[in-house]
């Protein structure tokens, strides 16, 4: 159960280029932070470093639980949701299968997944193949696992991008509930998030 994310003096290098240096951030339970910065400044890389996919050159990433620091691997594998540009869906599988798999895989239950589907009004689409869904519908399907499998830390990479205004409002509600319930959100964004946030700047 993650109650805080600590990023200290982080530097990330991609190939020969150092994206940023001395980046520090602390996100506590009940807080949402928006990562802002120019394109290529390293927002996505920072999220992937927190998720453990990129190894930072210098710096430390730590997760605190109610009783002090948590083991990083367990914290990531039990407490982190990451939503990138790609939704991780297979075109030839049915929406219901992907929905249930993504939630079950992240520790949720089938019932919670279906409840999330109704919440994000995906019920009409359940028996379709993912192939026929629009980008916005696919993003909502991917978002379903955030509700279906409750995990404290959400790492979102431009979550609003493919969504229409109705869905953005819906996502705003979901995020607000998550933060109110003691969750943490770290989102890389270009357009502002529909909930009050603290912003963290990346890059020069």
């Amino acid at each position, binding site marked *: 159960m993650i109650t805080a994310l600590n990023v200290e003096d982080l530097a990330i290098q991609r190939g020969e280029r150092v994206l940023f240096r001395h980046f520090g951030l602390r996100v506590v339970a009940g807080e949402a932070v928006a990562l802002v910065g120019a394109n290529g400044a390293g927002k996505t890389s920072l999220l992937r470093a927190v998720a453990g*996919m990129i190894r930072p050159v210098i710096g430390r990433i730590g997760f605190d639980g109610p009783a002090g620091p948590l083991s990083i691997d367990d914290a990531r594998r039990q407490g982190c949701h990451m939503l990138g540009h790609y939704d991780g869906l297979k075109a030839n599988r049915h929406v219901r299968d992907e929905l249930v798999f993504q939630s079950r*895989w992240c520790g949720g239950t089938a019932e919670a997944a279906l409840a999330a589907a109704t919440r994000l009004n995906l019920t009409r689409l359940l028996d379709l193949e993912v192939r026929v869904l629009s980008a916005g519908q696919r993003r909502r399907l991917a978002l379903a696992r955030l509700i279906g499998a409750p995990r404290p830390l959400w790492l979102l990479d431009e979550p609003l991008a493919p969504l229409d205004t109705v869905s953005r409002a819906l996502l705003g509600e979901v995020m607000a509930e998550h933060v109110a319930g003691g969750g943490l959100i770290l989102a890389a964004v270009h357009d502002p998030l529909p909930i009050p946030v603290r912003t963290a700047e990346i890059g020069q």
Partner: protein
Amino acid sequence: MSVVGVLVRREMSLAWARGGGALLAVGFFAAATVMLPLALGPAPARLAAVSGGVTWVVLALASLLSLDRMFERDFDDGALDLLALGPLPLEVVATIKCLAQWTVSGAPLALAAPIVAVALGAKPAAAPMIFVAAGLGGLAFAFLGGTGAALALASRRGGVLIAVVVLPLLTPPVIFGGVAIENYTSGLPWLTPLCLLAGYALGAVALTPFAMAGACRNAQS
């Protein structure tokens, strides 16, 4: 159903859908072996002499061809990131993927192997050994092929690259399998080569997941 079960079910359905399931693997297997008599001529004696060995080589190629994009599809559509953040480590995920691959296309190939070998002139009595050897060999081919597929992830060029990288590593199972079939048909002791084949296959099952997980993490970074 536990998380492992959820993943196994997903991987099985993906493996089934990916290569057109067993159809493509067995299809290639049959098509490639049909070429042999056309090329070598119908003389039964000549075909029978090579039947066991050729079946074995074509089985290896069929296994390699039917596993491409095993990791690449998940890597391209972002599912690999989701799998990496799941409760099971990538090593276990890779093992399940290879086992699914072995079950979905390895098993049908193992069933087809005796038929193809006998069709080429191998003694029908050898059929059970060919099946067992093809099954065990298929396991080694699935896991080493999976390693090649994971290594080729970062290169955007699967297919031939996987074959070039993996085929030299298949020397031991091809030798053990070929000798096991050869000895069985000619009445020589066949247990040793079979055990060596089984040993190699189990070694591959035990060790390659670490290489596969490392390669996946490398591609993700």
